[in-house]
């Protein structure tokens, strides 16, 4: 009896231990999916954050990149930034658990988390605690319409991405006197794909375009033959897929098998801009267009991107930068710049610094015009580009003022590839 009481008391005292104190350095909590279906994306994002950390904490000669030349944050007398990494496994309650733990460990801000549902739940926790939550890579428009004061999104949301695609279609119609007006939407059924698909559906109606086929399929599906057959039957002018890597491969392989040749394919990045997309599919990838906030080919014109990519490869086990890690990097740097500007780890001062943040576009590796948050916490200076795979490389084709190549229309057929 005494033993059991003793054991219980010991157990309770262990779990009710006081919070460990923290030092001068800046501590930021990072949550990403590190297991489950999006684990590779999560790992890349963490590698991107580590890249940013490397740049901030060490001396690097990267002209144009803020916080690179000094060790640590000059605004806080050289204080180093450290991160605590947690795996939210894609579930909002786990995200809440990780966030609570990190808040209790004394983080000064939270960053993450790719899954919009997790971001929503975790940012509720930080809002209640008065700690800023910065997000670089979650696309659900709802995140910035909740009236939160401590939530800031550096990257674009689905509406903005899709807006770009539709602007392109309208511009294309005007420029070439064409009449593209039927759309096919193919999306996987997780939160990301579904949000993307429904945003596209809604916007299409607003723009007067007809969606003649909208297919949602179970993510990581075993086969896509019925889907391809239906699309081939309906033959929309423009196909808008939202797919992750494995499904993108399967789709293109099946399209080749069944000889389905869409005239125009504009993908919502993800699988279509995976670092191994072109190398794996080879010729089959020709003509595919994807929107992206990032493109490693830009490294030729913007040397900063090349340098950052090299550092990223060290942290990611050899993988190149791609869409999500580029956005994650940018978001984290924006947070670091804000903390630097605040000159303090006080959450209110950090929040104020974020509200007043104004980073010019030249300091970024993504083609945003800058980082400047609106009253709802959304960065209003975002911009994306559309790239097309031509001759085995991605080439920017839209907006026309940033384009490096002319659009190839219609997409080459399977026999031509």
């Amino acid at each position: 009896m005494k033993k059991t009481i003793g054991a219980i008391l010991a157990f309770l005292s262990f779990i009710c231990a006081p919070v460990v104190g923290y030092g001068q350095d800046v501590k930021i909590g990072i949550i990403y999916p590190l297991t489950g279906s999006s684990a590779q994306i999560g790992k890349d994002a963490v590698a991107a954050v580590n890249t940013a950390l490397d740049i901030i904490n060490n001396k690097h000669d990267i002209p144009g990149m803020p916080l690179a030349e000094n060790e640590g944050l000059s605004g806080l007398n050289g204080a180093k930034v450290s991160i605590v990494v947690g795996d939210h496994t894609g579930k909002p309650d786990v995200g809440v658990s990780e966030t609570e733990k990190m808040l209790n460990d004394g983080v000064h801000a939270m960053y993450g988390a790719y899954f919009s549902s997790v971001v929503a739940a975790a940012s509720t926790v930080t809002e209640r605690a008065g700690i800023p939550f910065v997000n670089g890579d979650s696309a659900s428009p709802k995140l910035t319409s909740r009236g939160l004061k401590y939530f800031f999104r550096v990257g674009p949301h689905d509406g903005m991405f899709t807006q770009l695609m539709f602007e392109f279609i309208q511009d294309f119609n005007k420029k070439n006197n064409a009449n593209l007006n039927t759309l096919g939407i193919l999306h996987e059924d997780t939160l990301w794909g579904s949000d993307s698909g429904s945003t596209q559906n809604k916007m299409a109606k607003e723009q007067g375009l007809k969606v003649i086929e909208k297919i949602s399929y179970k993510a990581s599906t075993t086969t896509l033959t019925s889907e391809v057959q239906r699309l081939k039957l309906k033959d929309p002018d423009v196909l808008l897929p939202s797919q992750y890597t494995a499904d993108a491969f399967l789709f293109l392989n099946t399209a080749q098998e069944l000889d389905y040749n869409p005239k125009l394919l504009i993908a919502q990045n993800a699988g279509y801009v995976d670092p191994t997309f072109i190398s794996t599919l080879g010729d089959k990838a020709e003509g595919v267009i994807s929107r992206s906030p990032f493109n490693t080919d830009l490294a030729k014109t913007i040397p900063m991107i090349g340098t950052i990519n090299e550092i990223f490869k060290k942290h990611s086990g050899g993988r190149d930068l791609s869409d999500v890690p580029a956005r994650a990097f940018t978001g984290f740097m924006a947070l670091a710049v804000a903390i630097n500007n605040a000159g303090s780890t006080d959450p209110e001062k950090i929040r104020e610094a974020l509200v007043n943040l104004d980073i010019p576009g030249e300091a970024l590796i993504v083609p945003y015009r800058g980082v400047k948050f609106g009253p709802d916490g959304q960065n209003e200076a975002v911009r994306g580009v559309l790239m097309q795979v031509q001759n085995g490389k991605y080439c920017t084709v839209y907006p026309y003022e940033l384009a490096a190549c002319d659009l190839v229309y219609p997409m080459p057929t399977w026999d031509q590839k």
Partner: protein
Amino acid sequence: MLDKLSLAKKEPVWKNNNKVLYFLGSTVLLLFCLPFFNVNSFYLHLFIMIFMHSVMAQSWNVIAGFSGQISLGHGLFFGIGAYATSFLFTEYGITPWIGIIFGMFVSGIIAILIGIPMLRLHGHYFAIATLLIAIGFSLVFRRWDLVGAASGLWIPILPTDSWVALQFNSSKVPYYYIFLTFFLVTFLLSWLLSRSKLGYRLRAVRDDPQAALSLCINVSNYKIIAYVISAMIMAPMGSLFAQYILVIDPATVFNIEISIVVLLITVLGGVGNIWGPLLGTVILIPISEYTRIYLGGTGGAVDLILYGLILMLICVFRPNGLISFFNRDVIDRKQKR
């Protein structure tokens, strides 16, 4: 024969073990006083998750432990509860308390609709059927725009705490007490069930359906009753979860993992025993939380490797569940059979 009968008659209705009662009483008191010890919100969250999973495991225990039908899709009632309250609140502003009752009602109906055709199936066939139905619900809800499709329902954050709207933003303590209350009530109900005629009949159905039938126990009706009861215990947990996290989507609340976790907890704790789910929860939830927190940040899934190993080890070395560490009668009784 007569000896055994007189022995059985002499057995007390419940084992009046004073030590156990004091232990239980003091634990309950401690749990009620816990928030006053200035426990930080992470630990409150951990306890809330423990309470929630305990109730969910008890719910599964009713159908699997008491009546012997293995359901691999129990998570669907969790999802229904979650969506019931959230939908009523976000669309019509109806208080979640009524939503909870609505969720229980809908779960009960669905349990009857599933139970009537499916409960005649044996073991594995029933398990697969429940699995498919649960996945089916997940697929349908991901495509159903009325309830938000795959983005689900996001409950608006209210400016002030509200018992009516079951939302508390300044502190977790009210959530803690609500979950604790549901936990204790469910535990009491399960204990009453196990002592009641219904409970005994259910166990008869589990142990030997043919013998039960010969005693005029309508096996199929009782199986359905067990299924409905377990569904109605599960649903409120989904509802409370929705009010706690404020974000629900099909991938979270209709996830097959919920069904699996509930199975794991109950089996590893000890099936058919009201303490089993509790023991399983108290051991497994902290293990999975702490392995993830301390080992999960690397992206190498080390925490899950450990979790899988622990599961296999428990199955190999303690096939009667962890309860066998405590309850010698359970083992003895089983060996005598």
